[in-house]
């Protein structure tokens, strides 16, 4: 489907199948579909850029650690503090570790990790690839007989898909530690008692579903950043737009995916 132009004799007039906006939306969707299919095709074909994948894993994983650590720890403290009054009112303050572990493992850790990654990694990938596109670095790779899609897109998407579940597990740990600090100070609960309650409250399905969700979030963060950057144009203005659009789109998709995952997991439970 394409946007057709009609020659009226004096001027050319745009002709659309549905409307300008709808036609563009369907064109964009078809481009996204082709991009995702190309990723799956290229990811399984040699050569495998292992060195670049490791480098990108470092960029996504290790460099996100300070932000994830701080955010996770604070979320643990704040969430515990805010939940305490309601539970105390019903005389259920001893249930605090269970409540915290369920909330963190099932929802907060995967979502917070993905949102942080969307803000930090997706925008970074969008800007980096966008800048490479407008400065012809992607063309330079292509003319030097290197597949830029494999080198730039496949490696980054694999890195985010692998690292975001790992970061999510780390977020769980840090947030639970933050919550422990707060619980220990207020209820004088010991470390062992606290963690026995934490692990009693969660099941295998909770961890498994969060890991699977994080793989999907990681793939989303990577593919959106790469798609926006790889298709950016209009010079430096396009680079800024690619970075911004990568964050907004990735966050939007993450929330939609969270909603869908919730429905599926609830049905399974």
């Amino acid at each position, binding site marked *: 489907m394409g946007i057709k*132009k009609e020659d009226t004799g004096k001027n*050319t007039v745009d002709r659309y199948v549905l409307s300008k906006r709808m036609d563009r939306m369907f064109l964009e969707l078809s481009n996204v579909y082709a991009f995702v299919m190309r990723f799956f095709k290229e990811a399984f074909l040699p*050569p495998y850029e292992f060195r670049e994948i490791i480098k990108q894993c470092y960029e996504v994983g290790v460099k996100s650690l300070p932000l994830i650590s701080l955010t996770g720890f604070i979320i643990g403290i704040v969430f515990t503090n805010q939940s305490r009054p309601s539970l105390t009112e019903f005389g259920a303050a001893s249930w605090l570790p269970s409540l915290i572990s369920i909330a963190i493992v099932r929802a907060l850790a995967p979502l917070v990790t993905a949102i942080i990654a969307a803000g930090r990694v997706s925008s970074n990938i969008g800007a*980096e690839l966008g*800048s*490479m596109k407008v*400065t*012809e*670095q992607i*063309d*330079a*790779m*292509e*003319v*030097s*007989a*290197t597949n830029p899609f494999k080198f730039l897109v496949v490696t980054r998407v694999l890195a985010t898909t692998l690292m975001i579940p790992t970061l999510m597990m780390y977020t769980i740990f840090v947030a639970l530690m933050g919550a422990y600090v707060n619980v220990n100070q207020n209820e004088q609960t010991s470390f062992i008692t606290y963690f026995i309650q934490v692990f009693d409250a969660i099941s295998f399905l909770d961890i498994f579903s969060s890991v699977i969700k994080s793989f999907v979030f990681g793939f989303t963060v990577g593919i959106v950043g790469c798609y926006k950057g790889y298709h950016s144009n209009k010079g430096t203005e396009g680079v800024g737009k690619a970075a911004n659009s990568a964050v907004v789109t990735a966050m939007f998709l993450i929330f939609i995916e969270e909603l869908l995952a919730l429905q599926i997991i609830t049905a399974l439970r």
Partner: protein
Amino acid sequence: MQKEKRPIDLNNKVITIRGLKKSFDELDILRGVDLDLHQSENLVVLGRSGTGKSVLIKIISGLLKPDEGYVNVLGQEVAKISGRELDRLRMKIGFSFQNSALYDSMTVRENLEFPLVRNVRNMTRGQTDKLVENVLDAVGLLRAINQMPSELSGGQRKRIGIARTLILKPEIMLYDEPTAGLDPITSMDINNLINEVQERFNTSSIIITHDLTCARATGDRIVMLLEGQFQYQGTFEEIFRNDDPRVKAFYNYNFTD
């Protein structure tokens, strides 16, 4: 400075283009271009900005697909070969980009190694290092080997860009506006480098430019792209002896400003 005459083998064509057409949306950029590039020849394509000069070399290197026409490079029709064959062909073509297109996240050494490690198998670390150093030496920038592209001047970036293309020992060089944005002295250095590359590596080159000093200093033959077609060709003097006002205007703008 006029380029010295070199013997050109007119029977050995490395690029043949016939009836090449390319348009973007409703805009016809190339309207039936015919071109031959001979072995060891430096061919300059002159024309105003936006006339499709860069489009022409992007089609030759397979970055863009032609709408119509025949493009044969080193005996292979670019639009009809498979991706793998195109990659093999691209190893014989060096493309020097207008803005150098150096990879910002890599050092000069890594920029030069990049095409090498991906396309040449069974090279030892020592052989790779030696080749990188030799090519950098050829462009006079061995001292910049561990620098980042952001630390280099415009002229140095151009030289490194050319060095990166030379690392695979190409048979054909495509230069996109090699002197754009450079001061006259640095431009002359780049012109000399283009001629050195031709002599030392025995390359055939297409040089896209609107800089007449560059055209005169590097071109064995010059073709002029006007309104999507090559209107005139010959030596620098033959082209500008012409009475066509469009050619005169081009000459006057370059040499009377």
